[in-house]
């Protein structure tokens, strides 16, 4: 990674955070505030008349009671004699009452507070007109320019005249008005916030361009991105100040990665589907709104960020966006409205499952959930055809629950030392994730394996976990087990119910589990009795290959093994005995050669090969 870019990223993040706080501070200082008026005594009748006639000298000439007391030249009363003052005062009150009736057109109850305030002072804004802070739209434009200028230094090539970067900034500028409602006053504190979120998205867009030399974003793609992704983040800003502070913190953490995820997806789709519309902004909006609404929701167990971790939330969001891009219709109702609730329920359902299995809290569980969302979402139309009554999001939550529960059950099946049994103790988080992935990859090709009422996915995971738990001697590494699981899943997909049954209740008796355990039993006995000193053959790569061969053979005729589960055991024992007697003739390669040659027949007929047949196979 270019160090300048990294430092620049930190500086940019600093600026974005500080800019938001600065703008909020500006709003606090510059909004209209109440300034109280002077409160001076109204004065005696003479003083009031003096002021009234100073302001309305024309009245003095037309009204005898006033003219008798007014000196128009000196602009002062001629006398303070009470008989003249009292008569003039009565006339003044009449005039004032008339003026009041004429000028006051407002409904009394509606204008009560305003009248009170006007009587006591004025609401006054901070700045004079030529120094007023720029409007929301101009501020956004300044932000775009500022960010563009930052990038010029580090990435001059993407910001030349007519370049990809310049086009992106222009596209942002063209579409930023979509973030601002018609009634700007109603936007309130969202004005500053929108500016900040826009900045985050532009940085993400320019960053994507900098790292993808061939990517070009179209104006209409940016429109959809701003409408579908940026706007929901702005609109989800809560009303109250304390909730806003919390939400701003969340956006600080999530908006950048969310923007990057959206742009990465946009870049991938632009490259993959030339000429194809990027996505429906309503579908993107449904996913984004759901995410940013859900992150605000806090239960007694915390928010989804506490369950998935920030990294996990973004991974799930990315998966949701991917489905929205590929199949926008899944997020739309019959009336073409966005189904925000759908992705919210998917997030909350997944969070509930992970809360129940703390071993999978954080990025691992979130990544598994994201894989499920991708697989189920990708195959949603096929699933809906197979089972029209099963909503795809419920299938996803159920599948995820089944995978996690099966793995968690296996991991919770502990030995006397409190460790997971067999090979499962050697699985890292990444390897558990990979195990889930190889099975889900297979499921993606055979969507019929998914379902709410019955799930072969769960059967496969449970069966494989059962088999792994028997590998007490760790004859196979975690990676080797993952490859075997891949083969098992493939065979299971092609042969529904044959290898792992259709129920998870009896995995002990499932064909694949029985055979795998049988092979492991033989391998384990050989290893236990002699260790490496007696040149054992059935472990590691050889054992992996043998297991793959037997699993693949289970797709064929299995009449004999169904009735005599120890057939494979007998066959292997015979081969290993021959190998130990003739070590110079029988290595791991020879063992596998003979095993592969006869396993199909053994499973079908129950007849073990003769010594002659074995010798012939070895020589072939």
């Amino acid at each position, binding site marked *: 990674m270019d160090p300048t870019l990294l430092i620049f990223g930190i500086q940019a993040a600093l600026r974005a955070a500080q800019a938001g706080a600065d703008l909020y501070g500006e709003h606090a200082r510059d909004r209209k505030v109440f300034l109280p008026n*002077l409160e001076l005594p109204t004065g005696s009748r003479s003083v009031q008349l003096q002021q009234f006639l100073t302001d309305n000298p024309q009245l003095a000439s037309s009204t005898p009671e006033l003219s008798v007391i007014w000196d128009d030249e000196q602009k*002062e009363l001629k006398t303070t004699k009470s008989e003249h003052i009292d008569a003039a005062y009565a006339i003044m009150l009449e005039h004032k009452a008339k003026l009041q009736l004429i000028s006051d057109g407002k409904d009394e109850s509606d204008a009560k507070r305003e009248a009170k305030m006007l009587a006591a002072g*004025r609401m006054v804004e901070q*700045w004079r007109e030529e120094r007023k802070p720029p409007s929301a739209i101009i501020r956004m434009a300044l932000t775009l320019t500022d960010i563009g200028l930052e990038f010029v230094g580090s990435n001059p090539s993407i910001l030349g005249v007519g370049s990809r970067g310049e086009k992106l900034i222009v596209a942002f500028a063209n579409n930023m008005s979509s973030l601002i409602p018609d009634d700007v006053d109603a936007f309130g504190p969202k004005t500053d916030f929108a500016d900040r979120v826009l900045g985050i998205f532009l940085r993400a867009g320019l960053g994507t361009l900098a790292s993808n030399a061939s990517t070009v974003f179209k104006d209409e793609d940016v429109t959809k991105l701003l409408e579908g992704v940026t706007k929901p983040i702005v609109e989800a800003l809560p009303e109250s100040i304390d909730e806003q502070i919390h939400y701003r913190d969340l956006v600080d953490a999530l908006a950048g990665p969310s923007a990057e995820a959206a742009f990465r997806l946009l870049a991938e789709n632009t490259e993959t589907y030339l000429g194809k519309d990027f996505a429906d902004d309503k579908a993107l909006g449904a996913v984004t709104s759901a995410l940013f609404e859900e992150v605000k929701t806090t239960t007694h167990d915390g928010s989804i960020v506490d369950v998935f971790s920030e990294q996990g939330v973004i991974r799930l969001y990315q998966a949701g966006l991917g489905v929205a891009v590929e199949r926008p219709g899944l997020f739309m109702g019959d009336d073409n409205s966005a189904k925000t609730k759908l992705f919210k329920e998917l997030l909350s359902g997944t969070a509930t499952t992970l809360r129940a299995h703390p071993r999978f809290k954080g990025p691992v569980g979130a990544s598994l959930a994201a894989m499920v969302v991708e697989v189920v979402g990708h195959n949603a139309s096929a699933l809906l055809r197979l089972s029209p009554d099963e909503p795809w999001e419920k299938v996803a939550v159920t599948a995820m629950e089944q995978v996690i529960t099966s793995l968690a059950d296996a991991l919770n099946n502990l030995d006397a030392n409190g460790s997971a049994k067999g090979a499962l103790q050697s699985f890292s988080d990444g390897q558990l994730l990979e195990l889930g992935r190889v099975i889900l990859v297979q499921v993606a090709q055979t969507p019929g394996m998914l379902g709410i009422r019955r799930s072969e996915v769960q059967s496969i995971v449970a069966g494989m976990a059962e088999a792994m738990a028997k590998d007490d001697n760790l004859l196979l590494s975690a990676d080797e087990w993952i490859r075997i699981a891949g083969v098992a899943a493939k065979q299971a997909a092609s042969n529904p119910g044959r290898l792992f049954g259709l129920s998870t209740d009896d995995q002990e008796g499932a064909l694949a589990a029985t055979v795998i355990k049988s092979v492991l039993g033989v391998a384990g006995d050989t290893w236990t009795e002699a260790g490496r000193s007696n040149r054992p053959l059935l472990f590691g790569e050889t054992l992996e290959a043998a297991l793959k061969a037997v699993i693949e053979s289970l797709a064929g005729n299995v009449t004999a093994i169904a009735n005599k589960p120890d057939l494979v055991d007998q066959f292997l024992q015979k081969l290993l005995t021959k190998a130990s007697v003739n070590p110079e003739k029988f290595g791991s390669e020879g063992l596998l050669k003979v095993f592969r040659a006869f396993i199909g027949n053994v499973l079908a007929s129950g007849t073990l090969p003769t010594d002659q047949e074995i010798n012939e196979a070895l020589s072939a």
Partner: protein
Amino acid sequence: MRKFSTRFIIGVILFLLAGCATVEDVQRSTDLIRTDNELTRLLVEVRPSDQVAAATYLTVLANDAEREADALKDIQGKEPDAIAFYRIAATAYWRSGNPKVVNNLFKTASNGTDLCTKLGKNAPDRDCLFLRLVIPFAGLESNANKKGLSGLLDSVNFNDNKKTTEEIETMAEIRGSLNQAKPLVQKILIIGTDDRLLSHPGMREYYCANAKQAKGYYDSTAAVFVVKVKEFHENFTDNTPSLGITIDDARAIRNLEKVVPSFCQ
């Protein structure tokens, strides 16, 4: 590589520090909004019906705002926030009507205007204009209410062909009071020459309403004082006892060197 690591770590530390500073900034802005809202509530809702309680609350609020402002005034870049808190403190001290906090009123207004001078053309318009007005406003109100000029004028009647010593002393007291009020009104009017008012409709409206009120109050009170002086000289030709002021002197007191700006008409 080591150089890069050092730069990266410095960047991360700066980021974390800035994060803390940002939270502090947001909280301070929230405080400013809340304090302003509370000031408005006290002035509009509480004070009209309960001046005694409002005076207590306003003094407490002013103390808080002054503390906030003092804490910010020397921090680079935070001067506008400090000025806003000084504006709130000065308003609350002024409107509390509490004679014990007069010094605080002067101090906050002075600190605020000093910061405005320091910021020069970047000084916030409304807050800085208001901080210039608040002292003459408070002075004029105090003068008008303490002396009760209008009542004093009413107590003098030279049309009854009598001139008592009390009346002549009262006239001297009114003259002294007008002489004190005059420079305060002139200070208010001179602010009308500030160009910022030309293009700030809200502040202009506020200024004009109050400048007219100040000028109207002073002018009409001084004009009635002139009439009383005139009536004295019309009714009494002997100088025993003497009023000690001619009609021209009285008109000179009335005459203000500054006028309400034309944009207020």
